[in-house]
């Protein structure tokens, strides 16, 4: 307890977050049950970094009541490169996302963010991003940043760079693969696996990860987001190979700003014990070896 000086336990808080009512600019289908929604929010878009998220809900609605945490997919910009708004990609899964999929341009959304710590910006030779299903959403921006194609944050953050970025992307089947062209367009080397063999490698995304690690030299780092069991497997591989690994946890959230204490995960302390940490403000990005997967 209290292992860092901040009594709130989180160096990252909602202290730079803004709450906005925004209008949907576009809402397009990318893959089966998967959509990309775009809304204007210049100040939020200027400050958000890869791996951070926003809370989003339908304005003036009490059912569904709560916002949903959605990672920033990318920032969209005007002709001069100024941040105008953000895109988020979501899988239709429950009550809110079903309604969201039917949102037309002009519909009002309530949004607050940027939230969470985001991925660290580091210098590595080779960044391997491992995504399972809808866990791919933070990786366009992360890949662009590490490849030097785009800076994020206000002021634009420095320090993130990689000579090479590989994306290992596993999905149930080809029809669920979303945004592959976005990844390729920014220079990311994309490897695909599907559970049914309908695209790419017929098997697990961890097979792709192992192959990528085999082919890689020193200076490799992993960033991972997806189903918990997949992240646990990736964490195990990273530990066995002694490769640094960051995971983005997706625990259910109610507020996104650190006040409800819903989204806790068991995180190992330096003394070997564990404590519940809120993924919204103390994460969602954690060093993989810190997570007690149970």
């Amino acid at each position, binding site marked *: 307890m209290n292992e860092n000086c901040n009594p*709130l336990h989180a160096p990252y808080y*909602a202290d730079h*977050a803004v709450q906005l009512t925004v209008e949907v600019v576009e809402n397009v289908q990318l893959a089966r049950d998967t959509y990309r929604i775009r809304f204007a929010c210049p100040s939020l878009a200027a400050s958000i970094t890869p791996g951070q998220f926003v809370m989003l809900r339908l304005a003036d609605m009490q059912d569904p*009541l709560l916002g949903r945490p959605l990672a920033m997919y990318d920032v969209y910009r005007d002709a001069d490169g100024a941040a105008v708004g953000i895109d988020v990609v979501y899988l239709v899964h429950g*009550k809110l996302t079903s309604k969201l999929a039917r949102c037309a341009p002009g519909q009002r959304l309530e949004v*607050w963010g940027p939230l969470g710590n985001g991925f660290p910006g580091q210098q590595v030779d080779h960044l391997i991003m491992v995504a399972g299903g809808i866990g791919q959403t933070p990786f366009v921006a992360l890949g662009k940043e590490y490849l030097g194609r785009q800076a994020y944050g206000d002021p634009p953050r420095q320090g993130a760079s990689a000579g090479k970025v590989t994306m290992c992307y596993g999905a149930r089947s080809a029809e669920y693969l979303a945004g592959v062209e976005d990844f390729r367009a920014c220079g990311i080397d994309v490897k695909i696996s599907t559970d049914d063999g309908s695209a790419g490698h017929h098997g697990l995304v961890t097979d792709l990860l192992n192959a990528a690690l085999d082919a890689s030299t020193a200076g490799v780092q992993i960033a991972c987001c997806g189903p918990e069991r997949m992240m646990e497997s990736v964490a195990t591989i990273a530990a066995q190979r002694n490769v640094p690994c960051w995971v983005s946890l997706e625990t259910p959230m109610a507020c996104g700003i*650190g006040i409800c204490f819903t989204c806790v995960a068991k995180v190992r302390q330096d003394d070997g014990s564990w*404590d519940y940490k809120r993924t919204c403000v103390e994460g969602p990005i954690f060093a993989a070896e810190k997570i007690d997967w149970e």
Partner: protein
Amino acid sequence: MSASLSVEIGSLRLANPILVASGTFGYAREMAGMVDVGRLGGIVPKTITQAPRAGNAPWRTVETTAGLLNSIGLDNDGIDAFIEHHLPYLGQLASPAIVSIAGRTSEEFTQMAARLSQYDEVGAIELNISCPNVSGGVDFGICPETCRDLIASVRAQCTKPLLAKLTPNVARIADVAAAAEEGGADGISAINTLLGMAVDWRRQKPLLGNVMGGLSGPAIKPVALRCVYQIAQRVKIPVIGIGGIGTIDDVMEFLVAGATAVQIGTANFNDPTVSMRLLDQMPAALAELGAASIQEIIGSLQPKSQPAPNVLGSPVA
């Protein structure tokens, strides 16, 4: 001229009747980036306990129709950490801190309240005798005699204004409120959450890690309004209305039904700046009733007719 918004709870004067409820606003500092926290009528930080508590296993919340089930389990660092780290911050705010405490025994409640009494930063103390997610504390909110004795014990050792936060999970909430008043409470906070549960029938498992939890949000507002009405009819001390408040209409309904102030709870989760909007909207709502002060509308409800007594208690003492 705009109407006066100030209200009093015992010796505690609040600049306005918009407060935030325990467990829904952290320790205020978390919200300071999004909310001008000093504008609030009062702040009730997350409930503290004598010893640190890790809280319950996930899932800790589940969304239900227009509501939220929670079983957080009073996750907190304990009273020592609160006094050391959070109280100094709360003390420098313009809004009074109404510190929420939960004990397992009468002695624990009394010791914590006595200790907090020594701090100028503490504006008042709210006794959480109604959390459905931990064993112990809730018992004090169910039986009127036990409630009265607990409050009397705390009262004897505590110089701060004392609020009793009551559970709706009882047959006659006004009886418990009357007992709290008799024990020496300066005000009643009502209500805490309604005990509920959610089930995944495909997996044949409860959704909450703790199986059952407390329901909050718009879904419970009518129950909260009924409780506040019944309590306000019964006791002379002020009632603070809590339960599903998220719009200015909700606020006004509680005031008219007898609440002296309100606490915003779950709405802070889905609309973090809601309290500021309600403060902005308050003067116009009072003007609509032609009220020169908020006092004129508190408890101004005029029943159409006297409802018949029922199992949940007569609406009028």
